[in-house]
Protein backbone atom coordinates (compact mmCIF):
# COMPACT_ATOMS: atom_id res chain seq x y z
CA UNK A 1 0.00 0.00 0.00
CA UNK A 2 0.93 3.59 -0.09
CA UNK A 3 3.88 3.77 2.17
CA UNK A 4 6.04 6.78 2.32
CA UNK A 5 9.50 6.45 0.99
CA UNK A 6 12.44 6.58 3.28
CA UNK A 7 13.53 9.84 1.72
CA UNK A 8 10.20 11.41 2.56
CA UNK A 9 10.52 10.30 6.13
CA UNK A 10 14.02 11.67 6.30
CA UNK A 11 12.81 14.99 5.04
CA UNK A 12 10.26 15.34 7.75
CA UNK A 13 11.17 17.04 10.96
CA UNK A 14 10.84 14.78 13.93
CA UNK A 15 7.62 15.16 15.84
CA UNK A 16 3.96 15.56 15.30
CA UNK A 17 3.87 14.92 11.56
CA UNK A 18 5.46 11.53 11.65
CA UNK A 19 2.73 9.70 13.44
CA UNK A 20 -0.32 10.30 11.37
CA UNK A 21 0.17 9.77 7.64
CA UNK A 22 0.10 6.02 7.74
CA UNK A 23 -2.24 4.94 10.46
CA UNK A 24 -5.82 6.05 10.83
CA UNK A 25 -7.33 5.29 14.19
CA UNK A 26 -5.29 5.80 17.30
CA UNK A 27 -4.79 2.82 19.55
CA UNK A 28 -4.81 4.92 22.72
CA UNK A 29 -8.32 6.26 22.31
CA UNK A 30 -10.78 3.43 22.77
CA UNK A 31 -13.76 5.77 22.88
CA UNK A 32 -14.86 8.44 20.48
CA UNK A 33 -14.59 8.71 16.74
CA UNK A 34 -11.15 7.84 15.41
CA UNK A 35 -10.69 10.97 13.26
CA UNK A 36 -11.29 13.43 16.09
CA UNK A 37 -9.22 11.72 18.77
CA UNK A 38 -5.77 12.48 17.25
CA UNK A 39 -6.89 16.07 16.70
CA UNK A 40 -7.77 16.40 20.37
CA UNK A 41 -4.49 14.88 21.46
CA UNK A 42 -2.63 17.21 19.14
CA UNK A 43 -4.48 20.18 20.62
CA UNK A 44 -3.66 19.08 24.16
CA UNK A 45 0.00 18.68 23.25
CA UNK A 46 0.09 22.15 21.73
CA UNK A 47 -1.62 23.59 24.80
CA UNK A 48 0.90 21.96 27.12
CA UNK A 49 3.86 23.14 25.06
CA UNK A 50 2.46 26.65 25.00
CA UNK A 51 1.96 26.67 28.77
CA UNK A 52 5.47 25.41 29.48
CA UNK A 53 6.98 28.15 27.32
CA UNK A 54 4.92 30.75 29.19
CA UNK A 55 6.00 29.29 32.52
CA UNK A 56 9.70 29.34 31.57
CA UNK A 57 9.37 32.88 30.34
CA UNK A 58 7.60 34.00 33.51
CA UNK A 59 10.32 32.38 35.64
CA UNK A 60 13.10 34.02 33.61
CA UNK A 61 11.46 37.41 33.97
CA UNK A 62 11.66 37.04 37.77
CA UNK A 63 15.46 36.93 37.62
CA UNK A 64 16.05 39.72 35.12
CA UNK A 65 15.01 43.36 35.16
CA UNK A 66 12.02 44.25 33.01
CA UNK A 67 14.08 46.15 30.44
CA UNK A 68 15.98 42.93 29.68
CA UNK A 69 13.19 40.34 29.93
CA UNK A 70 9.75 41.81 30.26
CA UNK A 71 7.03 39.57 31.69
CA UNK A 72 4.57 37.79 29.36
CA UNK A 73 1.81 40.13 30.56
CA UNK A 74 3.82 43.22 29.64
CA UNK A 75 4.58 41.79 26.23
CA UNK A 76 0.99 40.82 25.52
CA UNK A 77 -0.16 44.29 26.52
CA UNK A 78 2.43 45.75 24.17
CA UNK A 79 1.37 43.36 21.44
CA UNK A 80 -2.30 44.30 21.68
CA UNK A 81 -1.30 47.94 21.50
CA UNK A 82 0.87 47.32 18.44
CA UNK A 83 -1.86 45.28 16.77
CA UNK A 84 -4.06 48.35 17.05
CA UNK A 85 -1.69 50.36 14.85
CA UNK A 86 -1.82 50.35 11.07
CA UNK A 87 1.93 50.29 10.87
CA UNK A 88 2.28 46.97 12.66
CA UNK A 89 -0.52 45.37 10.68
CA UNK A 90 1.11 46.51 7.46
CA UNK A 91 4.38 45.08 8.61
CA UNK A 92 2.80 41.68 9.23
CA UNK A 93 0.91 41.84 5.95
CA UNK A 94 4.06 42.70 4.01
CA UNK A 95 5.91 39.74 5.48
CA UNK A 96 3.07 37.45 4.45
CA UNK A 97 2.98 38.80 0.93
CA UNK A 98 6.72 38.09 0.58
CA UNK A 99 6.26 34.65 2.09
CA UNK A 100 3.27 33.84 -0.11
CA UNK A 101 4.96 34.87 -3.35
CA UNK A 102 8.27 33.20 -2.51
CA UNK A 103 6.77 30.00 -1.19
CA UNK A 104 4.29 29.79 -4.06
CA UNK A 105 6.95 30.16 -6.74
CA UNK A 106 9.31 27.77 -4.93
CA UNK A 107 6.65 25.09 -4.59
CA UNK A 108 5.61 25.33 -8.21
CA UNK A 109 9.22 25.19 -9.42
CA UNK A 110 10.00 22.36 -7.03
CA UNK A 111 7.09 20.25 -8.26
CA UNK A 112 7.89 20.90 -11.92
CA UNK A 113 11.60 20.15 -11.55
CA UNK A 114 10.88 17.14 -9.35
CA UNK A 115 8.38 15.65 -11.79
CA UNK A 116 10.49 16.42 -14.84
CA UNK A 117 13.59 14.86 -13.35
CA UNK A 118 11.64 11.85 -12.24
CA UNK A 119 10.25 11.21 -15.70
CA UNK A 120 13.44 11.98 -17.60
CA UNK A 121 16.61 10.18 -16.49
CA UNK A 122 19.42 12.45 -17.76
CA UNK A 123 17.75 15.50 -16.26
CA UNK A 124 17.43 13.65 -12.95
CA UNK A 125 21.16 12.98 -12.69
CA UNK A 126 21.93 16.58 -13.58
CA UNK A 127 19.45 18.11 -11.17
CA UNK A 128 20.52 15.79 -8.36
CA UNK A 129 24.09 16.98 -8.73
CA UNK A 130 22.97 20.58 -8.93
CA UNK A 131 20.78 20.25 -5.88
CA UNK A 132 23.47 18.60 -3.79
CA UNK A 133 25.83 21.50 -4.48
CA UNK A 134 23.37 24.35 -4.03
CA UNK A 135 21.46 22.86 -1.12
CA UNK A 136 24.50 23.04 1.14
CA UNK A 137 24.59 26.85 0.96
CA UNK A 138 22.47 28.51 3.66
CA UNK A 139 19.95 30.66 1.75
CA UNK A 140 20.70 33.71 3.88
CA UNK A 141 24.28 33.77 2.56
CA UNK A 142 22.94 34.93 -0.79
CA UNK A 143 21.47 38.13 0.66
CA UNK A 144 24.41 40.51 0.02
CA UNK A 145 24.72 39.32 -3.58
CA UNK A 146 21.00 39.62 -4.24
CA UNK A 147 20.87 43.10 -2.72
CA UNK A 148 23.64 44.27 -5.03
CA UNK A 149 21.95 42.63 -8.01
CA UNK A 150 18.33 43.48 -7.30
CA UNK A 151 18.55 46.46 -4.97
CA UNK A 152 16.97 46.85 -1.56
CA UNK A 153 13.35 45.82 -1.19
CA UNK A 154 11.14 42.81 -1.61
CA UNK A 155 12.91 41.12 -4.47
CA UNK A 156 16.08 39.87 -2.75
CA UNK A 157 13.99 38.64 0.17
CA UNK A 158 11.58 36.78 -2.09
CA UNK A 159 14.48 35.24 -3.97
CA UNK A 160 15.99 33.98 -0.71
CA UNK A 161 12.63 32.47 0.24
CA UNK A 162 12.40 30.75 -3.14
CA UNK A 163 15.84 29.23 -2.69
CA UNK A 164 15.08 28.04 0.81
CA UNK A 165 11.74 26.41 -0.03
CA UNK A 166 12.61 25.06 -3.47
CA UNK A 167 15.06 22.34 -2.47
CA UNK A 168 12.94 20.41 0.02
CA UNK A 169 10.09 20.35 -2.48
CA UNK A 170 12.23 19.37 -5.46
CA UNK A 171 14.09 16.65 -3.57
CA UNK A 172 10.93 15.26 -2.03
CA UNK A 173 9.12 15.06 -5.37
CA UNK A 174 12.19 13.69 -7.13
CA UNK A 175 12.52 10.85 -4.64
CA UNK A 176 8.83 10.10 -4.76
CA UNK A 177 8.76 9.95 -8.56
CA UNK A 178 11.52 7.36 -8.48
CA UNK A 179 9.38 5.24 -6.18
CA UNK A 180 6.25 5.42 -8.29
CA UNK A 181 4.97 1.85 -8.69
CA UNK A 182 6.04 0.76 -12.23
CA UNK A 183 2.83 -1.25 -12.56
CA UNK A 184 0.81 1.94 -12.11
CA UNK A 185 2.66 3.50 -15.04
CA UNK A 186 2.21 0.35 -17.13
CA UNK A 187 -1.52 0.32 -16.51
CA UNK A 188 -1.89 3.83 -17.91
CA UNK A 189 0.48 3.12 -20.80
CA UNK A 190 -1.60 0.09 -21.75
CA UNK A 191 -4.66 2.33 -21.87
CA UNK A 192 -2.81 4.48 -24.38
CA UNK A 193 -2.02 7.40 -22.07
CA UNK A 194 0.08 10.20 -23.51
CA UNK A 195 3.14 11.50 -21.67
CA UNK A 196 1.08 14.38 -20.28
CA UNK A 197 -1.67 12.01 -19.18
CA UNK A 198 0.90 9.81 -17.48
CA UNK A 199 1.99 12.82 -15.45
CA UNK A 200 -1.51 14.01 -14.61
CA UNK A 201 -3.09 10.60 -14.00
CA UNK A 202 -0.23 8.65 -12.45
CA UNK A 203 2.82 10.62 -11.38
CA UNK A 204 1.16 13.71 -9.92
CA UNK A 205 -1.42 11.91 -7.76
CA UNK A 206 1.06 9.27 -6.69
CA UNK A 207 3.62 11.84 -5.52
CA UNK A 208 1.03 14.10 -3.91
CA UNK A 209 1.96 12.92 -0.40
CA UNK A 210 5.55 13.92 -1.16
CA UNK A 211 4.39 17.28 -2.44
CA UNK A 212 2.62 17.84 0.84
CA UNK A 213 5.66 16.83 2.92
CA UNK A 214 7.97 18.84 0.70
CA UNK A 215 5.62 21.77 1.12
CA UNK A 216 5.61 21.46 4.88
CA UNK A 217 9.40 21.31 5.13
CA UNK A 218 9.74 24.06 2.53
CA UNK A 219 7.30 26.24 4.39
CA UNK A 220 9.34 26.00 7.58
CA UNK A 221 12.47 26.94 5.63
CA UNK A 222 10.71 29.79 3.86
CA UNK A 223 9.41 31.23 7.10
CA UNK A 224 12.85 31.18 8.75
CA UNK A 225 14.53 32.67 5.71
CA UNK A 226 11.88 35.37 5.49
CA UNK A 227 12.56 36.60 9.00
CA UNK A 228 16.33 36.30 8.65
CA UNK A 229 16.37 38.08 5.29
CA UNK A 230 14.16 40.86 6.63
CA UNK A 231 16.57 41.29 9.53
CA UNK A 232 19.67 41.69 7.38
CA UNK A 233 18.16 42.67 4.05
CA UNK A 234 18.00 46.42 4.56
CA UNK A 235 14.22 46.72 4.24
CA UNK A 236 12.10 49.10 6.30
CA UNK A 237 8.99 47.01 6.77
CA UNK A 238 8.35 43.40 7.81
CA UNK A 239 8.43 41.31 10.97
CA UNK A 240 12.18 40.67 10.83
CA UNK A 241 12.83 44.36 10.39
CA UNK A 242 10.48 45.16 13.29
CA UNK A 243 12.52 42.95 15.63
CA UNK A 244 15.87 44.32 14.45
CA UNK A 245 14.77 47.93 14.88
CA UNK A 246 13.34 47.21 18.33
CA UNK A 247 16.59 45.49 19.29
CA UNK A 248 18.64 48.47 18.19
CA UNK A 249 16.79 50.73 20.63
CA UNK A 250 16.79 47.98 23.30
CA UNK A 251 13.00 47.79 23.25
CA UNK A 252 12.79 44.22 24.52
CA UNK A 253 9.02 44.22 24.85
CA UNK A 254 8.74 44.91 21.13
CA UNK A 255 11.38 42.29 20.31
CA UNK A 256 9.49 39.69 22.25
CA UNK A 257 6.16 40.82 20.81
CA UNK A 258 7.59 40.25 17.34
CA UNK A 259 8.87 36.82 18.34
CA UNK A 260 5.48 35.88 19.76
CA UNK A 261 3.76 36.86 16.52
CA UNK A 262 6.21 34.80 14.49
CA UNK A 263 5.80 31.77 16.76
CA UNK A 264 2.03 31.91 16.87
CA UNK A 265 1.59 32.42 13.16
CA UNK A 266 3.94 29.69 12.08
CA UNK A 267 2.53 27.22 14.57
CA UNK A 268 -1.00 28.00 13.44
CA UNK A 269 -0.13 27.81 9.75
CA UNK A 270 1.91 24.67 10.02
CA UNK A 271 -0.17 22.60 12.36
CA UNK A 272 -3.58 23.80 11.38
CA UNK A 273 -3.76 25.15 7.84
CA UNK A 274 -1.24 22.79 6.26
CA UNK A 275 -2.54 19.87 8.28
CA UNK A 276 -6.07 20.44 7.03
CA UNK A 277 -4.85 20.89 3.51
CA UNK A 278 -3.00 17.62 3.78
CA UNK A 279 -6.03 15.72 5.01
CA UNK A 280 -8.07 17.18 2.24
CA UNK A 281 -5.58 16.38 -0.50
CA UNK A 282 -4.80 12.90 0.80
CA UNK A 283 -8.35 11.91 1.58
CA UNK A 284 -7.76 8.38 0.35
CA UNK A 285 -5.02 7.79 2.88
CA UNK A 286 -7.27 8.62 5.77
CA UNK A 287 -10.25 6.57 4.62
CA UNK A 288 -10.74 3.81 7.18
Amino acid at each position, binding site marked *: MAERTRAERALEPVGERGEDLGGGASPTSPTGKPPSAPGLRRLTAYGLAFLSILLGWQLASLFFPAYLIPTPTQVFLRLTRELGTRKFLFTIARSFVRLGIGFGIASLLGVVVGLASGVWGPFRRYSRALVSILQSIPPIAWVPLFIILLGFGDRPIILVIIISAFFPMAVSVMNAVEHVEPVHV*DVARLMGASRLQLISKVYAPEVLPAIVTGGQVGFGNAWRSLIAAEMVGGVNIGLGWFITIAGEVADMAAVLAGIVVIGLFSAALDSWVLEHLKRRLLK*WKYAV
Partner: protein
Amino acid sequence: MEIRSLVETAELGRGEEAPSLLLAGANKGKIIVQELFKDFDSLRVLDGIHLEVGEGEFLALVGPSGCGKSTLLRMLAGLMKPSGGRVLIDGEEVRGPSPSRNLVFQEHALYPWRTVSQNVALGLEIFRFPPAEIRRRVKELLALVGLEGFDDYYPHQISGGMRQRAALARVLAVDPDVLFLDEPFGALDAMTRLTLQKELLRLWDHSGKTVVLVTHDVEEALYLADRVAIMSAVPGRIREIIRVKDPRPRDRGSASLVSLKRTVLDLLGLEPKFSQTIPAI
Protein backbone atom coordinates in the same frame (compact mmCIF):
# COMPACT_ATOMS: atom_id res chain seq x y z
CA MET B 1 23.49 -34.18 -18.28
CA GLU B 2 20.01 -33.49 -17.16
CA ILE B 3 20.00 -30.02 -18.59
CA ARG B 4 21.11 -31.23 -21.96
CA SER B 5 18.43 -33.86 -22.12
CA LEU B 6 15.90 -31.23 -21.21
CA VAL B 7 17.06 -28.99 -24.01
CA GLU B 8 16.88 -31.88 -26.45
CA THR B 9 13.35 -32.67 -25.45
CA ALA B 10 12.45 -29.04 -25.80
CA GLU B 11 13.81 -28.90 -29.31
CA LEU B 12 12.14 -32.14 -30.16
CA GLY B 13 8.90 -30.78 -28.81
CA ARG B 14 9.18 -27.66 -30.87
CA GLY B 15 9.89 -29.66 -34.02
CA GLU B 16 6.80 -31.71 -33.54
CA GLU B 17 4.73 -28.70 -32.64
CA ALA B 18 5.15 -26.81 -35.87
CA PRO B 19 2.89 -28.89 -38.13
CA SER B 20 0.19 -29.29 -35.50
CA LEU B 21 0.16 -25.54 -35.06
CA LEU B 22 -0.59 -25.09 -38.71
CA LEU B 23 -3.42 -27.56 -38.41
CA ALA B 24 -4.77 -25.75 -35.38
CA GLY B 25 -4.86 -22.52 -37.34
CA ALA B 26 -8.37 -23.22 -38.61
CA ASN B 27 -9.27 -19.83 -37.23
CA LYS B 28 -6.75 -17.25 -38.34
CA GLY B 29 -3.77 -16.53 -36.09
CA LYS B 30 -4.62 -13.49 -33.98
CA ILE B 31 -1.26 -13.47 -32.25
CA ILE B 32 1.79 -14.84 -33.98
CA VAL B 33 5.12 -15.03 -32.17
CA GLN B 34 8.16 -15.70 -34.31
CA GLU B 35 11.69 -16.60 -33.19
CA LEU B 36 11.29 -14.42 -30.13
CA PHE B 37 14.14 -14.14 -27.64
CA LYS B 38 15.01 -11.85 -24.80
CA ASP B 39 18.32 -11.17 -23.05
CA PHE B 40 18.80 -9.34 -19.79
CA ASP B 41 22.46 -8.35 -20.07
CA SER B 42 24.20 -11.65 -20.75
CA LEU B 43 21.37 -13.80 -19.43
CA ARG B 44 19.03 -15.26 -22.00
CA VAL B 45 15.61 -15.47 -20.36
CA LEU B 46 13.58 -16.42 -23.40
CA ASP B 47 14.88 -18.40 -26.32
CA GLY B 48 13.30 -19.07 -29.67
CA ILE B 49 9.65 -18.72 -28.76
CA HIS B 50 7.20 -19.75 -31.47
CA LEU B 51 3.56 -19.40 -30.70
CA GLU B 52 0.30 -18.86 -32.47
CA VAL B 53 -2.93 -17.92 -30.75
CA GLY B 54 -6.16 -18.09 -32.70
CA GLU B 55 -8.83 -15.42 -32.71
CA GLY B 56 -11.09 -15.85 -29.67
CA GLU B 57 -8.83 -18.52 -28.22
CA PHE B 58 -7.97 -18.89 -24.53
CA LEU B 59 -4.32 -19.85 -24.13
CA ALA B 60 -2.58 -20.48 -20.83
CA LEU B 61 1.17 -20.29 -20.28
CA VAL B 62 2.43 -22.36 -17.36
CA GLY B 63 5.95 -22.82 -16.18
CA PRO B 64 8.21 -22.67 -13.17
CA SER B 65 8.95 -19.24 -11.75
CA GLY B 66 11.74 -17.57 -13.64
CA CYS B 67 10.89 -19.22 -16.95
CA GLY B 68 10.16 -15.84 -18.45
CA LYS B 69 6.42 -16.27 -18.89
CA SER B 70 5.67 -12.82 -17.51
CA THR B 71 8.42 -11.36 -19.68
CA LEU B 72 6.85 -13.04 -22.68
CA LEU B 73 3.49 -11.55 -21.76
CA ARG B 74 4.98 -8.07 -21.38
CA MET B 75 6.47 -8.35 -24.85
CA LEU B 76 3.15 -9.51 -26.27
CA ALA B 77 1.49 -6.48 -24.68
CA GLY B 78 4.15 -4.15 -26.06
CA LEU B 79 5.46 -3.09 -22.66
CA MET B 80 8.89 -4.52 -23.40
CA LYS B 81 10.97 -4.77 -26.54
CA PRO B 82 12.19 -8.22 -27.56
CA SER B 83 15.92 -8.69 -28.11
CA GLY B 84 15.10 -10.54 -31.30
CA GLY B 85 12.24 -11.98 -33.26
CA ARG B 86 8.83 -10.41 -33.42
CA VAL B 87 5.25 -10.46 -32.26
CA LEU B 88 2.44 -9.97 -34.74
CA ILE B 89 -1.07 -9.16 -33.67
CA ASP B 90 -3.65 -8.94 -36.44
CA GLY B 91 -0.75 -9.22 -38.84
CA GLU B 92 0.94 -6.07 -37.50
CA GLU B 93 4.15 -6.03 -35.54
CA VAL B 94 3.78 -4.99 -31.91
CA ARG B 95 5.94 -1.95 -31.25
CA GLY B 96 4.31 -0.56 -28.11
CA PRO B 97 1.22 -0.75 -25.97
CA SER B 98 -2.15 -0.29 -27.62
CA PRO B 99 -5.63 0.05 -26.12
CA SER B 100 -6.86 -2.82 -28.29
CA ARG B 101 -4.88 -5.21 -26.10
CA ASN B 102 -4.67 -4.90 -22.39
CA LEU B 103 -3.13 -6.59 -19.39
CA VAL B 104 -4.43 -7.46 -15.95
CA PHE B 105 -1.67 -7.55 -13.35
CA GLN B 106 -1.34 -9.70 -10.29
CA GLU B 107 -1.80 -7.03 -7.63
CA HIS B 108 -1.02 -3.47 -6.60
CA ALA B 109 -2.28 -2.42 -9.99
CA LEU B 110 -5.28 -0.43 -8.79
CA TYR B 111 -4.51 3.19 -8.00
CA PRO B 112 -4.79 3.56 -4.23
CA TRP B 113 -5.73 7.24 -4.55
CA ARG B 114 -8.75 6.46 -6.70
CA THR B 115 -11.98 4.88 -5.58
CA VAL B 116 -13.19 1.69 -7.23
CA SER B 117 -15.35 3.58 -9.72
CA GLN B 118 -12.60 6.11 -10.44
CA ASN B 119 -10.21 3.24 -11.08
CA VAL B 120 -12.62 1.63 -13.53
CA ALA B 121 -13.02 5.01 -15.21
CA LEU B 122 -9.27 5.42 -15.87
CA GLY B 123 -9.20 4.16 -19.45
CA LEU B 124 -12.38 6.02 -20.34
CA GLU B 125 -10.84 9.24 -19.00
CA ILE B 126 -7.73 8.65 -21.06
CA PHE B 127 -9.99 8.11 -24.10
CA ARG B 128 -11.67 11.42 -23.17
CA PHE B 129 -15.19 10.06 -22.93
CA PRO B 130 -17.77 12.59 -21.69
CA PRO B 131 -18.32 12.36 -17.89
CA ALA B 132 -21.93 11.22 -18.18
CA GLU B 133 -20.93 8.42 -20.52
CA ILE B 134 -18.13 7.42 -18.15
CA ARG B 135 -20.54 7.25 -15.20
CA ARG B 136 -22.95 5.12 -17.16
CA ARG B 137 -20.34 2.66 -18.38
CA VAL B 138 -18.64 2.39 -15.01
CA LYS B 139 -21.96 1.52 -13.44
CA GLU B 140 -22.54 -1.21 -16.02
CA LEU B 141 -19.07 -2.60 -15.55
CA LEU B 142 -19.27 -2.69 -11.78
CA ALA B 143 -22.53 -4.60 -12.11
CA LEU B 144 -20.92 -6.93 -14.62
CA VAL B 145 -18.11 -7.91 -12.26
CA GLY B 146 -20.34 -8.00 -9.19
CA LEU B 147 -19.14 -4.84 -7.47
CA GLU B 148 -22.35 -2.83 -7.27
CA GLY B 149 -22.40 -0.56 -4.27
CA PHE B 150 -18.63 -0.48 -3.91
CA ASP B 151 -18.20 2.54 -6.19
CA ASP B 152 -16.82 4.85 -3.52
CA TYR B 153 -14.54 2.46 -1.68
CA TYR B 154 -10.80 2.83 -1.91
CA PRO B 155 -8.81 -0.27 -2.92
CA HIS B 156 -7.39 -0.81 0.56
CA GLN B 157 -10.91 -0.97 1.94
CA ILE B 158 -11.98 -3.99 -0.12
CA SER B 159 -10.78 -7.59 -0.28
CA GLY B 160 -8.16 -8.94 -2.65
CA GLY B 161 -10.78 -10.74 -4.70
CA MET B 162 -12.79 -7.57 -5.10
CA ARG B 163 -9.66 -5.68 -6.09
CA GLN B 164 -9.04 -8.13 -8.91
CA ARG B 165 -12.66 -7.82 -10.01
CA ALA B 166 -12.16 -4.06 -10.15
CA ALA B 167 -8.91 -4.48 -12.06
CA LEU B 168 -10.72 -6.69 -14.55
CA ALA B 169 -13.53 -4.15 -14.90
CA ARG B 170 -11.00 -1.39 -15.51
CA VAL B 171 -9.51 -3.33 -18.40
CA LEU B 172 -12.88 -4.43 -19.80
CA ALA B 173 -13.95 -0.77 -19.78
CA VAL B 174 -11.78 -0.04 -22.79
CA ASP B 175 -13.01 -3.21 -24.52
CA PRO B 176 -9.73 -4.67 -25.78
CA ASP B 177 -9.94 -7.60 -28.20
CA VAL B 178 -6.85 -9.20 -26.72
CA LEU B 179 -6.66 -9.71 -22.99
CA PHE B 180 -3.43 -10.63 -21.23
CA LEU B 181 -3.64 -11.89 -17.67
CA ASP B 182 -0.46 -12.02 -15.60
CA GLU B 183 -1.20 -14.38 -12.71
CA PRO B 184 -4.33 -12.38 -11.98
CA PHE B 185 -5.45 -14.63 -9.14
CA GLY B 186 -2.01 -15.59 -7.83
CA ALA B 187 -2.27 -13.59 -4.62
CA LEU B 188 -5.78 -14.72 -3.73
CA ASP B 189 -6.87 -17.42 -1.33
CA ALA B 190 -7.87 -20.75 -2.86
CA MET B 191 -11.62 -20.30 -2.61
CA THR B 192 -11.69 -16.78 -4.00
CA ARG B 193 -9.48 -18.01 -6.80
CA LEU B 194 -11.98 -20.69 -7.82
CA THR B 195 -14.83 -18.19 -7.80
CA LEU B 196 -12.92 -15.69 -9.90
CA GLN B 197 -11.89 -18.37 -12.40
CA LYS B 198 -15.55 -19.10 -12.96
CA GLU B 199 -16.31 -15.40 -13.25
CA LEU B 200 -13.54 -14.96 -15.77
CA LEU B 201 -15.02 -17.73 -17.93
CA ARG B 202 -18.43 -16.11 -17.70
CA LEU B 203 -17.02 -12.76 -18.83
CA TRP B 204 -14.96 -14.28 -21.62
CA ASP B 205 -17.65 -16.59 -22.97
CA HIS B 206 -19.11 -15.30 -26.24
CA SER B 207 -17.02 -12.12 -25.92
CA GLY B 208 -14.85 -13.19 -28.82
CA LYS B 209 -11.80 -11.90 -26.95
CA THR B 210 -8.47 -13.60 -27.34
CA VAL B 211 -6.99 -14.36 -23.93
CA VAL B 212 -3.45 -15.25 -22.91
CA LEU B 213 -3.17 -16.21 -19.26
CA VAL B 214 0.10 -16.61 -17.40
CA THR B 215 -0.18 -18.78 -14.33
CA HIS B 216 1.81 -21.15 -12.17
CA ASP B 217 -1.37 -22.99 -11.25
CA VAL B 218 -1.66 -26.01 -13.56
CA GLU B 219 -5.22 -26.74 -12.50
CA GLU B 220 -6.25 -23.17 -13.24
CA ALA B 221 -4.73 -23.41 -16.70
CA LEU B 222 -6.51 -26.71 -17.45
CA TYR B 223 -9.81 -25.45 -16.08
CA LEU B 224 -9.78 -22.27 -18.15
CA ALA B 225 -7.80 -22.64 -21.34
CA ASP B 226 -8.33 -24.11 -24.79
CA ARG B 227 -4.63 -24.84 -24.96
CA VAL B 228 -1.92 -24.90 -22.35
CA ALA B 229 1.65 -24.05 -23.28
CA ILE B 230 4.18 -25.55 -20.89
CA MET B 231 7.42 -23.64 -20.51
CA SER B 232 10.82 -24.65 -19.22
CA ALA B 233 13.23 -22.34 -17.45
CA VAL B 234 16.64 -20.81 -18.10
CA PRO B 235 16.39 -20.03 -20.87
CA GLY B 236 12.61 -19.97 -21.14
CA ARG B 237 11.29 -22.15 -23.94
CA ILE B 238 7.94 -23.59 -24.86
CA ARG B 239 8.29 -27.31 -24.30
CA GLU B 240 4.90 -28.55 -25.26
CA ILE B 241 1.44 -27.30 -26.06
CA ILE B 242 -1.50 -29.36 -24.84
CA ARG B 243 -5.03 -29.00 -26.08
CA VAL B 244 -7.81 -29.34 -23.52
CA LYS B 245 -10.81 -30.77 -25.33
CA ASP B 246 -13.31 -30.97 -22.45
CA PRO B 247 -16.34 -28.75 -22.97
CA ARG B 248 -16.88 -25.93 -20.48
CA PRO B 249 -17.86 -25.66 -17.71
CA ARG B 250 -15.27 -28.24 -16.83
CA ASP B 251 -15.29 -30.58 -13.90
CA ARG B 252 -12.02 -30.04 -12.06
CA GLY B 253 -12.12 -33.63 -10.83
CA SER B 254 -12.92 -35.30 -14.15
CA ALA B 255 -10.69 -38.17 -15.21
CA SER B 256 -9.48 -36.36 -18.33
CA LEU B 257 -8.47 -33.18 -16.46
CA VAL B 258 -6.74 -35.19 -13.75
CA SER B 259 -4.78 -37.15 -16.28
CA LEU B 260 -3.91 -33.99 -18.19
CA LYS B 261 -2.74 -32.45 -14.96
CA ARG B 262 -0.47 -35.41 -14.39
CA THR B 263 0.93 -35.03 -17.89
CA VAL B 264 1.62 -31.34 -17.37
CA LEU B 265 3.20 -31.84 -13.96
CA ASP B 266 5.30 -34.57 -15.47
CA LEU B 267 6.45 -32.23 -18.22
CA LEU B 268 7.32 -29.67 -15.58
CA GLY B 269 9.28 -32.35 -13.75
CA LEU B 270 7.05 -32.13 -10.69
CA GLU B 271 5.32 -35.50 -10.77
CA PRO B 272 7.06 -38.44 -9.10
CA LYS B 273 7.39 -41.50 -11.32
CA PHE B 274 4.90 -44.10 -10.17
CA SER B 275 7.11 -46.97 -11.19
CA GLN B 276 9.64 -45.67 -8.69
CA THR B 277 7.32 -44.85 -5.82
CA ILE B 278 5.01 -47.84 -5.84
CA PRO B 279 7.59 -50.53 -5.01
CA ALA B 280 8.69 -48.46 -2.05
CA ILE B 281 5.30 -48.74 -0.35
